[in-house]
């Protein structure tokens, strides 16, 4: 048995890298925020799926495939879903229309990320299967004085948590009423956020002690991570854009409900993705879905293989911003072709030496991966990407 490399992970919570030691090496627990299923997943969503899939693979390699639990949720209750259901299936009863939207979108997502070689997570819970757990958490939060009912909503009282804002580094003074957030008079503090809200007759809803309603966005992940990973677990991941408010509020809910010091010990966030030098947006015409890249000629006039997309994403260190472009994809395709030629008749080695894996580990530690331009040489001259220029 060869020694496995110890991963060093950058923790958003401490803004520093530290050697990773799981709470229980026989069950390493990872949670990553999954898709809200109302539309095709875009390449930015693809990046998050790939980054945490790579982490999942490295953890499995280090601790054994059966000793890692990876939970990626499916958010299937959201006002954007309702709007899409009304638009696309106006003839169906709302609940049926919603199911059509969420089921087809979730199936498409699975297909897309499978084409990007993402392994299936251990559990992919749906929010709507976990309403009971959310209600239990909300009841506890009210009981402990961390939440209150006002004007048909249950709200989390941020002032009830002494160290609210630790993850994002924001303090409550940053959220001065009127400056950036509209003042809601029913909130004790303008930063208070919704745990539960009442539904009108034409909105989806579940019976609850606070009336027929639906959950706020953040409570889902607190409930689902607790159910499958426990009150405190090892790693929580997601895109940089989720740090505030989503992850900050998850921490607040989970810690205040459980009276714990941490929801997850390590928080990891992948960087932003731009397309051809600009923020991806439908109005700029540079918004692309994974499906479009794989199955249509919308981007660069050709279809792109999944492994080229994956490599194009992994050529940049996960915390760095990516400028996704046609050139980058072409570069990935060229690399794959060079490597395939260089590999010849060789078969993959059955056991990787630890020093080789050490070269891969930096992809998820703080050291930036080499620039794409510096990578190809080692493989083409001397073989596959094992040379020092592939990974530092």
């Amino acid at each position, binding site marked *: 048995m060869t020694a496995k490399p110890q991963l060093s992970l950058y923790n958003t919570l401490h803004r520093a890298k530290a050697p990773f030691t799981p709470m229980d090496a026989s069950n390493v627990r990872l949670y990553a925020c999954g898709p809200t299923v109302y539309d095709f997943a875009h390449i930015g969503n693809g990046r998050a799926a*790939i980054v945490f*899939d*790579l982490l999942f*693979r*490295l953890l499995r*390699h280090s601790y054994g495939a059966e000793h890692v639990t990876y939970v990626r949720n499916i958010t299937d209750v959201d006002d954007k879903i309702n709007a899409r259901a009304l638009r696309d299936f106006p003839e169906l009863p709302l609940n049926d229309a919603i199911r059509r939207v969420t089921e087809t979108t979730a199936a498409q997502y699975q297909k897309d990320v499978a084409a990007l*070689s*993402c*392994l299936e997570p251990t559990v992919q819970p749906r929010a709507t299967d976990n309403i009971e757990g959310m209600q239990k958490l909300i009841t506890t939060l009210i009981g402990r004085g961390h939440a209150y009912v006002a004007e048909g909503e249950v709200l989390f009282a941020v002032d009830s948590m002494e160290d609210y804002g630790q993850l994002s580094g924001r303090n409550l003074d940053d959220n001065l009423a009127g400056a950036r957030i509209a003042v809601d008079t029913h909130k004790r503090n303008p930063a208070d956020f919704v745990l539960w809200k009442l539904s009108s007759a034409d909105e989806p809803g579940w019976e609850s002690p606070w009336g027929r309603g639906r959950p706020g966005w953040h409570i889902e992940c607190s409930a689902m991570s607790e159910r499958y990973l426990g009150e405190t677990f090892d790693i929580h991941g997601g895109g940089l854009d989720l740090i505030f408010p989503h992850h900050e509020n998850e921490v607040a809910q989970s810690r205040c409900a459980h009276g714990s010091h941490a929801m997850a010990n390590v928080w990891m966030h992948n960087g932003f993705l731009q397309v051809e030098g600009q923020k991806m947006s439908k109005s700029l015409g540079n918004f692309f879905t994974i499906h479009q890249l794989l199955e249509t000629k919308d981007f660069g006039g050709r279809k792109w*293989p999944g*492994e*080229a997309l*994956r*490599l194009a994403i*992994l050529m940049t260190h996960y915390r760095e911003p990516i400028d996704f472009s046609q050139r980058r994809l072409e570069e990935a*395709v060229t690399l*794959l*072709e060079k*490597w*395939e*030629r*260089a*590999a*010849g008749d*060789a*078969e*993959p*080695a*059955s*056991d*990787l*030496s630890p020093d*080789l*894996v050490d*070269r*891969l580990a930096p*992809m998820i530690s703080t050291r930036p991966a080499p620039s794409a331009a510096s990578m190809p040489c080692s*493989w083409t001259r*001397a*073989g*596959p*990407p*094992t040379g020092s220029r592939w990974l530092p």
Partner: protein
Amino acid sequence: MDEGRAADGLALAALMGIQIKREVAEDTGVASKVAERLDALNSKDFAKADAIRKDLAEQGIALMDYKDEAGQRQTKWEVKR
């Protein structure tokens, strides 16, 4: 090329979730078309040779001509990604 390095590289790429070697497709008649084109070239029927190259390119097959040690014209081909 060093077999061991290639084996390590493939295994490392697999750990990254990147499959470098593609499944080898069943014989789709490419080899016979390549041979047919070589014959056309040798008999200076360049129009036919170009037509075959174009036809194959549309199927994503790239051709590369070279001379072997005996100075004979040969063609290598590969499937583009």
